[in-house]
């Protein structure tokens, strides 16, 4: 319990709020600048002195992005690959998590350690053999190449997240199914899946996010413009036009939209995924 309203106490509170404001500037100014720049003309972005709010508010950058089928294709590719990988990952991880959570078996401990340690394998290490494999199986520059390689990085996280979630569910539920003569398979679909929706949502959100952010594999395993994802698209935009900064910012805003929306709508699930594995 604090002593009330001494001068020193009030000073500390004021100092804290000043520090909070400084922190807010540090955290949010770059994002604010991205957002406002996307509504400015390209010349206004570098105006001196800088304009805090767009003087001539314009949607021309967004119109340029959304009116260009090549750029829309980047978005389609990103959504398509991320959705496909999310569905596959969640299905496969759910099965593995069920195995880990509900059974005792030989090698369980070491398999669990294996999955934890695969989280930290550097993507650049796998890139070279992936490149070799993708070329020799003739899937270079296809969705298949991206989906398969993304799967390797999303699976370990998804398994750990789902196992963690299933471990919180009481075992009596599936034992009841077993007493009625049902198999573990029936128990999984009839009992576990319906009550695991929060866990499934958290896992999906995190998987989607990993795919949406992926850069290295998309850069190396695709080549044609029609196969590129949003992150690569932004990079291409940077090289092509002599720095159309407002368009780059508009594309960045559009490219951040799914994650921002997921975060605002489902903060709880979002944070569950982001901190999974690190805090127990």
């Amino acid at each position, binding site marked *: *319990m604090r002593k009330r309203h001494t001068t020193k106490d009030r000073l500390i509170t004021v100092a804290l709020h000043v*520090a909070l404001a400084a*922190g807010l500037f540090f*955290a949010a100014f*770059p994002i604010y*600048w*991205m957002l406002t720049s996307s509504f400015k003309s390209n010349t206004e*972005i*570098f105006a001196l*002195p*800088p304009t805090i709010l767009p003087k001539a508010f314009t949607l021309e950058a967004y119109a340029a992005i959304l009116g260009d089928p090549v750029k829309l294709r980047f978005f389609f590719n990103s959504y398509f690959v991320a959705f496909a990988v999310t569905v596959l990952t969640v299905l*496969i991880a759910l*099965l*593995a998590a069920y*195995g*880990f959570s509900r*059974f005792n*078996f030989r090698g369980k401990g070491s398999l669990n350690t*294996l999955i*934890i*340690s695969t989280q*930290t*394998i*550097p*993507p*650049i*290490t*796998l*890139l*070279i*053999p*992936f*490149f*070799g494999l993708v070329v020799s199986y003739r899937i270079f520059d296809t969705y298949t190449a991206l989906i*398969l*390689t993304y*799967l*390797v990085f999303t*699976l370990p996280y998804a*398994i750990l997240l789902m196992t963690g979630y299933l471990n919180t569910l009481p075992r009596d539920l599936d034992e009841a199914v077993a007493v009625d003569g049902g198999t573990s398979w029936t128990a999984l679909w009839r009992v576990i899946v319906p009550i695991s929706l929060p866990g499934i949502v958290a896992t999906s959100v995190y998987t989607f996010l990993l795919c949406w*952010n992926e*850069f290295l594999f998309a850069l*190396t395993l695709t080549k044609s413009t029609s196969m590129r994802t949003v*992150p690569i698209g*932004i*990079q291409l935009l*940077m090289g092509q036009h002599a720095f159309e900064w407002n368009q*780059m*910012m508009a594309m*960045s805003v559009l*490219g*951040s939209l799914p*994650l921002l929306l997921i*975060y*605002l709508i489902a*903060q709880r699930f979002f944070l569950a995924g982001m*901190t999974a*594995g690190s*805090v*127990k």
Partner: protein
Amino acid sequence: MTRQKRSRHRLKRTVAPYLYLSPSLVIIGLLMLLPMVAVISYSFQNSAVLRRDPSFAGLKHYQAIFADPVFWASLWHTLYFTCMSVIFHMTIGMIFALMLNSDRINPTLRNILRVLYILPWLFTAVIIAVIWRLLLEPNGVVNSILMQLGIIGSKIEWFSSPETALHAVTFANIWAGYPLFMVSLLAGLQGIPKDFYEAADIDGAKAYQKLIFITIPQLMPIIISISLLDFIWTMQVFPLIWITTGGGPIYSTEVLSTYTYKLAFSSYNLSQASASAVVILLISLGLTLFYIRYQKAR
């Protein structure tokens, strides 16, 4: 249940977990363990991947890398980039978490600030790189603010002068990564029992003493495990550097991942790139073992 039924049931219980795990294990085996074996064997071959019948090269590619001054520069830059990032992620994350946890601010403000402080985390590395390129443009807003305040005399080319480039990318990465610490520490702070602080108050402890003797020791497990994970992940950073500086100017921001990538896909020296990739793998594995041991000891 009859005995026969029961034994069949038991058999099912023994086989079932492996069946459930099999899709995952097949994928991890084929697409992770096998490629790892492949990259190690490439590193001992001449013209790996590019030729069908590569000849054995021994340790040649490793020697070539260790003799390359750019490799050592990259290793040093990676270390600098990673250590500074982790230290500042931790410090900023801790300060923000403590501020947000203080009972001196009102709950609504706290919730709003918490959402806003997490923001940098929601952006893809590529987008972070583009934002910082815009901010740090020679004619950009950061230079113009700094000049107006009289902190710098002339425009600085943050990303394109060798003296500032490494600091600039490190700064961008610090900005991008502190929320992981903040969120985790905030969760940790809320888990510290209130009576610890009440007992300290009775003993007349000062605020900084409570911080040093209660808060920090209680948060230590989180600090250590997040630092290790952050170190491993930051060490592997590629897109941020690739988009802001591409490793330049004159190798001044070259890190192990960009060095390896260029060897593989600019010079098409996939054997030497594999050797470099194996070095990165070994460093990561060492740290991972440490991390797992730490997690198990807890």
